[in-house]
């Protein structure tokens, strides 16, 4: 099998179907970009879950002079109240063994400073304004209701926060994004498949003389199919490369430049996850181009 004949065939084929090839490339580009975004959204959820769901805690914030919670009387929480609260939490059946950590004003201030180290807000806040708290680890992170109601309203307790309350809407949003992107990517991939098979039908028609002679003189089926396969692979590869580029640009500007700066508390997807996603995208793109090409050429080049 001679490479230069195949390559010249490929060149002629691409030129002949330039507009269709471009259409295929663009469709694959957009659909793979969406597919990649969906992959990254999932990675992001996993990252966040990994960071928080293991350590999910209920945070019990204690009263300061300024807090207006139900259990506060306009004064700082007393040591007596603190002991009582700790006892209630520790004896609660849903609390994990050794699952109670207390955070002093000083510790709270330290972590606040670390979290917002580049923000001007640090200079306006003093250690005294920080709230003391108990951080509670649960035996079963989904069973938080019982403990929340037991602690809320105790003297000295300002507010009780459950992290799930904050994370679940975010996860829901990310999941929605992922499902939406996957559906759109799926629809576009179907469109790409139909475009590919249409392109091949046109190309097979345009080349029917050559194909007829090839069959007549006994060229192997694979040899006849090869230029079509290469055309599809090339289109898919170009589309996939564009899609990978798009994903990198997206990750760079949206995640690395913005999200990571604005929401430092969380870990964000980075180069590793993006690289993994682009690899999957290229493989999926190639498979999705080769399979319909193979089937369509078999149909239109039938021996």
């Amino acid at each position: 099998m001679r490479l230069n004949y195949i390559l010249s065939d490929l060149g002629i084929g691409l030129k002949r179907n330039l507009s269709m090839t471009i259409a295929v490339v663009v469709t694959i580009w957009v659909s793979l970009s969406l597919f990649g975004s969906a992959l990254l959204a999932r990675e992001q959820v996993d990252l966040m879950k990994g960071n928080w769901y293991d350590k999910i805690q209920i945070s019990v914030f204690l009263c300061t002079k300024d807090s207006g919670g139900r259990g506060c009387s306009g004064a700082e929480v007393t040591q007596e109240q603190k002991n009582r609260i700790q006892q209630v939490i520790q004896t609660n059946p849903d609390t994990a063994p050794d699952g109670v950590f207390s955070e002093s004003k000083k510790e709270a201030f330290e972590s606040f400073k670390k979290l917002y180290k580049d923000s001007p807000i640090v200079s306006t806040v003093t250690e005294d304004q920080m709230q003391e708290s108990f951080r509670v680890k649960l035996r079963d992170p989904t069973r938080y209701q019982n403990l929340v109601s037991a602690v809320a309203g105790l003297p000295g307790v300002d507010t009780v926060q459950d992290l799930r309350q904050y994370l679940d809407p975010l996860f829901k949003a990310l999941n929605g994004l992922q499902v939406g992107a996957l559906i759109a990517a799926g629809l576009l991939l179907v469109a790409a498949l139909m475009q590919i098979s249409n392109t091949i039908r046109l190309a097979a028609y345009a080349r029917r003389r050559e194909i007829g002679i090839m069959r007549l003189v006994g060229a192997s089926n694979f040899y006849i199919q090869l230029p079509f396969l290469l055309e599809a692979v090339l289109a898919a590869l170009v589309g996939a490369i564009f899609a990978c580029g798009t994903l990198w640009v997206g990750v760079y500007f949206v995640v690395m430049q913005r999200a990571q700066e604005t929401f430092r508390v969380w870990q964000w997807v980075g180069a590793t996850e993006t690289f993994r996603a682009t690899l999957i995208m290229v493989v999926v793109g190639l498979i999705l181009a080769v399979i319909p090409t193979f089937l369509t050429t078999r149909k239109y080049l039938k021996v």
Partner: protein
Amino acid sequence: MIRFENVSKTYEGQSKAALLNVNVEIEKGEFVFLVGTSGSGKSTFLRLTLREHRTSKGHIMVAGKDLNRLPNWRIPQMRRQIGTVFQDFRLLPNKTVAENVAFALQVIGKPRAHIRKTVPEVLELVGLDGKEDRMPDELSGGEQQRVAIARAFVNRPMILIADEPTGNLDPGTSVGIMKLLDRINRTGTTVVMATHDVSIVDQMRKRVIELENGHVVRDESRGVYGYQH
């Protein structure tokens, strides 16, 4: 070389058989005319030999192989042993004479050195030396058919199938083409030629198989076109 055993062929969606119980044996090196009116089954006969269609009943042996038992992927190999020529030449208009002939070798993966050696040889055999670089539309009909024959013969097939090769040519040119086919036949190649051309069949005095409504109605060695009453 070619053997039809009780071959019948009915095309899908048609009630009438295109071929019915055909038994024919063509030996190696024979020259056979296939005659009959349009629709008598000549083309079906040739297509079945090329395994473009399968038989509905019966077996066809080509070069010792039962075409019904030949798996699809082996068909290209089988076709390399058969050269084919048509009434409408079927040349590639964007390739030169030499490229058209070389194409048949390129697509079956012959090495370039072999192609460079064989193509001029076969062009000389068909009498087109010196016209290698012409485009098909610069040639006369007879010359175009010579290119087509060169392409069919360049891989030295055991069988040459010609479907009305002189159908588009004037009588003088046709004689030249027949001489060429005769020369190819003398190299040992089996030639099967479907034709309507009475004078050619009468002149050549080769074996004649006549088909009518899918039946073989006559099979004579050294026959003529029409019935001899």
